[in-house]
């Protein structure tokens, strides 16, 4: 399969076609890598920024009201560029005014969105990490993997699904504590 047209790619991604997303990812990475490695960034940083941009694009596409007014390439480039400038500013390596730069694409929302979501992701990652096993797997299996309680009971060797439910509830309470711990402190 070859997705040349942006419209086709967008349509396929909206249908949750993984192949289309892969194709998109593969197609534009070299551009972003050049952008970032030529501007005092490393390959790893390029990868991070690019993945954030792809995720934000992907999530935008899930909304029906999102209309792309330019080429995907341009959009990704703008988001990455802005994200990278922001990172550089945080590292005190870029002192220019980001606000004054190309506002025509209106990607500020995206950039702020990216950071918010990346933060929430990190927070959940830390909370789940703090949970330890088997709690982490029980929670992710049930709530993310959509596994049934019976399957989980079998997987973890619980004698019946009630025991598994008990365990799940305990794990959930602990996760709540870990995840909301920061909010309470604020």
């Amino acid at each position, binding site marked *: 399969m070859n997705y040349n047209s942006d419209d086709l790619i967008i349509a396929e991604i909206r249908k949750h076609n993984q192949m289309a997303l892969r194709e998109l990812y*593969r197609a534009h990475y070299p551009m972003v890598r050049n952008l970032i490695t030529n501007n005092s960034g490393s390959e790893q940083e390029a990868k991070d920024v690019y993945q954030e941009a*792809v*995720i934000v694009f*992907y999530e935008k596409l899930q909304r029906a009201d999102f209309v792309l007014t330019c080429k995907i390439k341009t959009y990704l480039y703008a988001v990455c560029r802005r994200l990278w400038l922001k990172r550089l500013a945080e590292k005190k390596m870029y002192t220019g005014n980001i606000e004054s730069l190309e506002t025509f694409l209106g990607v500020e929302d995206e950039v702020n969105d990216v950071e918010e979501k990346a933060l929430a*992701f990190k927070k959940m990652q830390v909370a789940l990490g703090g949970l330890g096993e088997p709690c982490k797997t029980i929670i*992710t299996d049930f*709530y*993310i993997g959509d596994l049934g309680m019976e399957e989980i009971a079998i997987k973890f060797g619980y004698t019946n699904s009630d025991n598994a*439910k008990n365990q799940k*509830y305990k794990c959930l309470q602990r996760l709540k504590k870990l995840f909301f711990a920061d909010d309470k402190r604020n």
Partner: protein
Amino acid sequence: MSERDLIELLDRQSRGDLSHQETIQLEEALKHPEMRAAAEKHGVLLSQLHAYGKRQALHTMMDSLHETIDEQKPKGKRVFLRKAYWPIAGIAASIALISVIFTWSLNQSVQDKMEEYKELRLEVQRIEKSQNAIVKEIKEKEKAIQPSRYSGTGFFISSKGYLVTSYHVVKDADSVYIENGAVGNHKAEVIYLDALSDLALLKVVSDTFEMKTSIPFLIRTAEADLGEEVYTLGFPREDIVFGEGSISALTGYRQNPTAYQISIPVNPGNSGGPLLNSKGDLIGVISGIQTKLTGAAFAVKSTSLYEVVKNDSIHETIPLPRQNTMRGNRVDQVKKWKDLVVMVRVYN
């Protein structure tokens, strides 16, 4: 209904396998504010978990993709200079070469001048050495009787056994002994050396040391006045010797701002002795003389001493005297000071 049951119901509701009766039960439960709050919290956590799950999946997918991309890294293109550019490149290169050589030679000549200056400074240092070194060198034949190599003067600044002397008195010391009529003979340890200000701090280490009186003088933190009458006590010989004069300049040798010039006749052995004002307060430490000038001696200002004592690199806190309890005229002051001034014997 417990929170556990509520969450169980909510989870089943989200999967759509709730019976009619259970739905009513849940709705009933949600009328309670606490239950509602718990349900909302659960909802927030779940939406966060879902977002996390989606993102995690995307990251995993992209990371695996990334590995395949990394393999197809574009190879760096080699850019060759076109033949037409060779002459220009040659000129540019030769200009670069010439400027490099020029800068280098310029640097060289600057360095030469520095060298001249350095040599001069070396001489100054040598002169300074001869100036400062009024450490009494005991002759070889006397060594049998008196094995100490050098001696100077020192004085107590704390009843805990801390003393001040000159850096050049104790700089080569293997061991240091202090002695006077009041405290006797004790071993001391050098705890701080400051070559720049020519000051050293000693501490008595022998167990038998005891000092009954408190320190009756102050270390002046302000500069003395020109013409102020000053005196000193020291050990240029086996007995304590008094000398008096006045502050003749507010700078030391070669305009050194951390020292005074004084008109007290001092001799080798006086180094490290206290310079005192009419109240008996410490205003300096005798450091040296100028050899080609009669009657010119130098003393390090007490302000420098104060800085040295307060220095962070000294890990011991030295309790400094707080008030002047000297009374009476100079003779009375000297009686008190006599017990505080010691002969510093240096062995190496």
